[in-house]
Every structure is written in structure tokens, then in C-alpha cells.
């Protein structure tokens, strides 16, 4: 009877109603973190005049893009009950290689970018292949890859930054489309594609199933290996892409770039409600997590809090947010 009622409502609503419905559900699902985010923004707006200016908002968003890209990959990895620690170093390696090819070897830009992307994607694929074939835990495999990729970035650059002064390459990181910085547009596209895959496609279902109950997935004829391969490959690609763009934005490929980025991406995913035991997580939630971290960094900068204290603040925010989230889940009553 319940079902019929819901079906009738759904029919009456049409497409506009459904979008509204989804939006309301989004607000409900992420209520806790959204309130936290609102309070944070409100507080900063009161304490700093600079916070709510359009230029600062753009700045926050642009700074959030790298973490957002990586956090998409991490959210996928966490949903399938895995993890990817290698995204920071893969970002660095792909960025430096792309920069090096352009600056030192005079390789045409599209080719250099393609090589950088293929390199990072291949490393992600390698992660996935090892995890699915050998059964070595993802934490270990990607920890090893983290060292390897970081080492490779140092070897390739000899430990020195590679400067690239090429207008059309640098445009990719610093350009605008109308009022919007290009990196924001890339990230928006990535978010839409990733949400679509997770929410609307078969593959998305399989990703949730593998993390929610691997046995059930296996007994339903889902190839866990394929899902793992997909997720880690995508994560590698996203890291490589972020590296190429970040490098274009900074006019140089730096082997040390991206240190600790994997942890920020994990923090964003977890803040956004992704479960550390797999099966649960949404790109939409992760996005808020990314924004919280970004706004927090920005706000503390605006208030001239030094970066050491910023780390402590970030740690506390993560702990508190996840604690409240857990309490909320515990309180959820069970139906008979």
C-alpha cells in the first residue's frame, strides 16, 4: 500500500518534481554536514570581511578543485571497501613528466598531456590489477605505489622543479570560460559524470554491491576484479589529470607537489558520509566535504592563523564531524 502511494506521487510529479524530490533528499541525507558547513561559512563571514567577496569565493572553489578530483577517486575506492594512497604521488609524477616533455623535449602539448594522463592512468590500472589478481590489501598495494610514484617523480626531475612557460599550456590551468576559472569547469564535469555513473548505471550498482557485500555481489555474477580494476584506474586517471592541470596552473612541475593530498581526499570523502567499511558514499556528500576543508583552510588563512594551527583545526573538525555522523547513524531506528 505504501508502495502504491509512492508510485502515484512519483507519476504525478513529472521531471521537475523528481528533481525537487532528489534535492530535498540530498539536503536530508547531508543535513549534519550541511549545517556544519553553514555555521562555518556564517562564522567566517562575520569574522572576516574578505570571506564573502566574489573573488575569494572563486579562489576557494578553484583551490578546492584538485582535492575534489582526487576525492572522487577516493570515494569510489572507499565505497568498494578499498583505499588509494597513491593519488598524491601519481599527481606529482604525471605533472612533472608532462612539464618535462614540454619544457625539455619540446614535445607538442597535446602529446605531452596525453602521455602524462596515460602514465597516471596506467599506474592506477596497475594498482587495480595487483589488488584484484593477488589479493594483497589495497592499503598495502597503494602504499607501495605511493612510494614508487613519488620516487619516480624525484628521479625524473632530479629533485628540481621543471619550469614551463608555455602560454597555451598554462592557459589550461589559469584560463577562464566567462567568469569561471577552467579548473572549476573540469571538476564540475567530472562530478557530474561520476555521480551519473554511481547513481544511474549498472556499473554504479556493482560498485555499491561490491563494497556493501562482496559475497552477494559475487553470487550475483558480478566480477569483483573488474569493478576493482575500474575504480583504481579511474582514481589513477583523476590523479594524473589533476597533476597536469595543477602543473599548468603553477607554471612548473614540482616533484614534491601533492604531498598529503591523499589524506585530504580521504578526509573529504569521510566528512561527506562515505563509510570506511564500504558500500556507502555519494559524490554529492564528498563535494561538501571538499568544500568544508577548503573553506576551513581559506578562513584560517584570512584570519592569519598559521598553518601549523590549521592542521590541528582540520584534524579536530574531521573527528567531530565523523563522530556526529556516527551518532546519527546509531540513533536511526530499525523497522520491524
Amino acid at each position, binding site marked *: 500500500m505504501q508502495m502504491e502511494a*509512492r508510485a502515484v506521487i512519483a507519476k504525478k510529479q513529472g521531471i521537475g518534481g523528481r528533481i525537487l524530490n532528489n534535492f530535498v533528499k540530498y539536503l536530508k541525507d547531508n543535513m549534519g554536514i550541511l549545517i556544519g558547513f553553514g555555521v562555518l561559512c556564517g562564522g567566517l563571514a562575520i569574522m572576516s570581511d574578505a570571506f564573502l567577496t566574489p573573488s575569494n569565493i572563486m579562489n576557494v572553489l578553484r583551490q578546492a578543485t584538485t582535492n575534489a578530483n582526487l576525492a572522487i577517486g577516493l570515494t569510489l575506492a572507499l565505497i568498494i571497501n578499498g583505499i588509494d594512497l597513491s593519488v598524491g604521488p601519481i599527481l606529482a609524477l604525471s605533472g612533472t613528466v608532462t612539464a618535462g616533455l614540454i619544457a625539455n623535449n619540446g614535445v607538442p602539448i597535446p602529446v605531452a598531456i596525453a602521455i602524462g594522463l596515460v602514465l597516471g592512468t596506467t599506474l592506477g590500472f596497475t594498482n587495480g590489477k595487483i589488488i584484484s589478481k593477488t589479493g594483497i590489501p589495497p592499503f598495502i598495494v597503494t602504499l607501495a605505489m605511493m612510494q614508487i610514484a613519488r620516487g619516480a617523480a624525484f628521479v625524473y626531475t632530479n629533485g628540481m622543479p621543471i619550469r614551463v612557460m608555455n602560454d597555451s599550456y598554462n592557459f589550461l590551468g589559469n584560463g577562464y570560460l566567462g567568469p569561471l576559472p577552467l579548473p572549476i569547469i573540469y571538476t564540475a564535469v567530472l562530478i557530474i559524470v561520476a555521480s551519473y555513473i554511481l547513481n544511474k548505471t549498472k556499473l554504479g550498482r556493482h560498485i555499491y554491491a561490491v563494497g556493501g557485500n562482496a559475497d552477494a555481489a559475487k553470487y550475483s*555474477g558480478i566480477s569483483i576484479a573488474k569493478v576493482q580494476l575500474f575504480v583504481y584506474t579511474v582514481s589513477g586517471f583523476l590523479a594524473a589529470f589533476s597533476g597536469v592541470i595543477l602543473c599548468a596552473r603553477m607554471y612548473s612541475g614540482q616533484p614534491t607537489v601533492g604531498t598529503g593530498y591523499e589524506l585530504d581526499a580521504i578526509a573529504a570523502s569521510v566528512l561527506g558520509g562515505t563509510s570506511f567499511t564500504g558500500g556507502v558514499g555519494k559524490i554529492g556528500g564528498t563535494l561538501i566535504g571538499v568544500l568544508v576543508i577548503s573553506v576551513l583552510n581559506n578562513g584560517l588563512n584570512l584570519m592569519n592563523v598559521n598553518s601549523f594551527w590549521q592542521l590541528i583545526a582540520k584534524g579536530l573538525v574531521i573527528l567531530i564531524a565523523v563522530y556526529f555522523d556516527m551518532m546519527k547513524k546509531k540513533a536511526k531506528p530499525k523497522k520491524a
Partner: protein
Amino acid sequence: MSRVILKMNDIHKQFPGVYALKNAQLELEYGEVHALLGENGAGKSTLIKVLGGIYQPDQGEIFFKDEKIDINSVHDAQARGISIIHQEICLVPYMTVAENFFLGREIDRRVFGSVDDHTMNAEAQEILDQLELDICATDKVESLSIAKQQMVEIAKALLKESSIIVMDEPTASLSGKEVDKLFDTIKKLKKKGIGIIYISHRMEELFQICDKVTVMRDGEYIGTRATSDATMDELIMMMVGRELKDLYVRGDHEIGEPILEVHNLSNDKLNHVSFKLHKGELLGIAGLVGAGRSELAKALFGIDEVATGKIILEGKEVAIKSPLEAMKNGIALVPENRKEEGLVLIQEVGFNISLPVIDRFDKGYTLDKDHENVLINQYIKSLNIKTPSVKQIVGNLSGGNQQKIVIAKWLAANPKVLILDEPTRGVDVGAKGEIYSIMTDMVKEGVSIIMISSELPEVINMSDRVLVMHNGEITGELQRDELEQEKIMKLATGGI
């Protein structure tokens, strides 16, 4: 066309160190309900996994609809219409019922490869309604009770165009009414010509619903009988390979003074529970799933918090806030789920048995392995635990032996009060009898036992006295001479 839909011949399967199947056979006809019977570890599940494409046999032939086939993957089996309803609930808790139904074969909408939830929800709902289940296709699985999840698992298999459906312990967590619904469904499936393989420990069900029974023992085919001319004794003998003496061993034992008194115990699951337990008494606690029986056990063992009430042990009031305190007071709990709460499955037999008493062997800088091994071997022998060695990994043993290890673990702690929560769940007939005789030996030695059980024959035959619970309350107390199935059920359902 012959009447045989499936023939499995001379199937062999070996795992490292274990011969799981040797010469297993099965022949199933169209529209037949065929029981597969055997003790735990007899190879039923392995044979089913071979049929379902989860394991590949080392040797043997499978004929499906008169054609020799290989089943190399779950996909192969599904493509041929072989559906398996697994014993353990195999659903993704965070997904809806419909999403689980269509897992692995989602319906596409053809635009941008998006899945068609609307159609899937509707089709899933149709099946649920056909079975008259009060379940909504868009409900999340985690919000459903275990019994409903089990029905979802069964309904899921009906969704596919199946020619063979395997049901592995489908009634394990179902109530009587739900079992009736399931049997109605099975009869409908039979009429459609679907072959059904039915696995259950509840023997009386086999006679109710099955046409034939194939018995397995130690991975081998023993024989096939028509249920119409088989007797329960004959089947049990085929299963255990010997005649079974009286299952419920109950010797005379003396019941002494009260050792444990519980006054008005309450928390969010319990409502003013009061009772007394005497020395050397076997007190049964009956009730339906969710009546608060396990919660009472957990409160007494210090796992769940107690809001109000008193626990008096040997005349002294005690506060039990943790399992450690419970153990110090001589209370032990053999929990309901041995795999999750009872054992470290990936560890050795010896490791598990001495775990609660490991302090005894602590020499400060190292463990006294010799004395530890004496204790371990003593319990392996006295409880007749069948293991190749002390070093065997517990997860590789049969359910009955695992259960005996959990019991051994707590016997080693010399408890005064032993709480057994579903002591024979998922244990075969042979091991059941052994567990009953262990319990009898213990009460003879003056240990007091609280036995929580959903199996009424066990409650009625083993208990000195029975408390019945409903909704977190004790709704009645029955002395040994008053124990009857109807009386218990009446109290368990709220007394009306």
C-alpha cells in the same frame, strides 16, 4: 525427453587437506522437490556450490536437460536457470529490495546506459505481492527483519526464469506462518515443472514438502529414498552411519540452593526481568526471535548496560559492567553467533580454547605452552572435538566442532553459571547429542546452566524449568512436568 532435468555423477572435489566430495551424486526430475540431507560437513554445501559454479569439481559429470555441461562460473549457472538461495543471507544491506533483486542483471533504459529503476521496482513489487509479503520493493534491506530478509532472498530467486532452484536452509529464521507461505510457493513452482533441491536440518519439513531424499555423509553419496516410504529413523541412520541412541541425554542430577537471583532487570530491551537460578539447574529460556532472550544473556554477561535492577550472585549483590567482571564472578556466555562472537576463526583450535584463561599461563615474560597444551588437549578429548591437531585453523572445522570449541573455551574458565545461547544452532544431529550430554555432565558437576533456545524439542527435553519471554518480559514459568509445545508458544506470543 527424459524426466530428469539434472544428473550429477561421481563428483569429486578436494581442498587443501580435506576431501570435500568423493563420488557425490544427485538426480533431479522436473517438478520434483528433492531433499539433500546430511550432517554438517557432509558435503551438501560443496555440492551445491559446484552446481552453482562457485567451485569447479576435480572430477565428475553434470548432465543438464540431457546435455553434458560444464559450469565454470556463477554466470554459467545463472544463464542456464540454476538459482541458488544461499543459507547465509546474501544481500547488500544498504541497497533496496529491488536493487538487490536485479543485482548483476540490471535493466538498462538504453539511454546513456542508465538503469531503469521504475521497471525494476515494479517487477520486484509484483513478485513480492505474489508471495503476499508485506515488503515494499523500495525498502532498504537493512531496515527489514531477518525473517523478511530471508523471504527477500527466496523471492529473488523466483524473479529469474529458473529451471532449478536450490534452497539451502530456507526456513532457518522463518516463523510458522512464513514457512507455510514458502511451502505454498514451492508447490506453485513444482507445478511449473521447476526442479527444487531442498536442504534443511528440520527433518519434519522434509516429509512435509519433499518427494525424494538423497543422503550424503563425509562427502559421499549414501542413497536416495522416496519420502513416502522412508522413515525418520532410517534417514538419521543413513546420515550418521550408526544408530542414534536417545538424542536427549538427561541424567538425574541434584538441584541445590539458588545461586543467581535477578531482580527487576531493565534496560532498553528488557522490562523488569526477575528470576532465580539454582545450583546444578538447567534453566531453559524460550521465546521468539527478538523477545529479549539474547539481550538478557548479554546484560548478565556485562555486554549490554543495565539501567535498573539487581543481580545477586551467591547471596552477594554484584555489578557486572563488562565481560571481564562477569568472568571474575564465574559467569560465562556461549554466544548465539559462534562465527562472529564465539571464535577467532582464522586462529588455531588451541588458541581459541585457551583464550579466556590465557592469564593462567602467563609466566610474565612468556606463555607456559606446556601447561596450556595440557588444558587444550584435555578439552579436545573430553568434548570429543574432531580436529586433526591443536594447530588446525578453526574456520576449517565443521559447525558442530566449532560449537564444541566455543563451549570448551568457557568450560576452561570453570564457570558457576554458564549461559548457552542457541547451543545447537546449525549443528548436525550427531554433534547435537554430544552437546546435550556435555550439558548434562556439567549440571551433574553442579554448574548452573541457562539455555536459550528456539528449538522447542530441545527446550522441552533438556530443561528442568523453562522461562518464556515476550517483548523483553518474562511472560511465564513452566516446571518440567508442565512443559508442552502449545503452552510455551502461547506464552511466547504474548499469552493470548
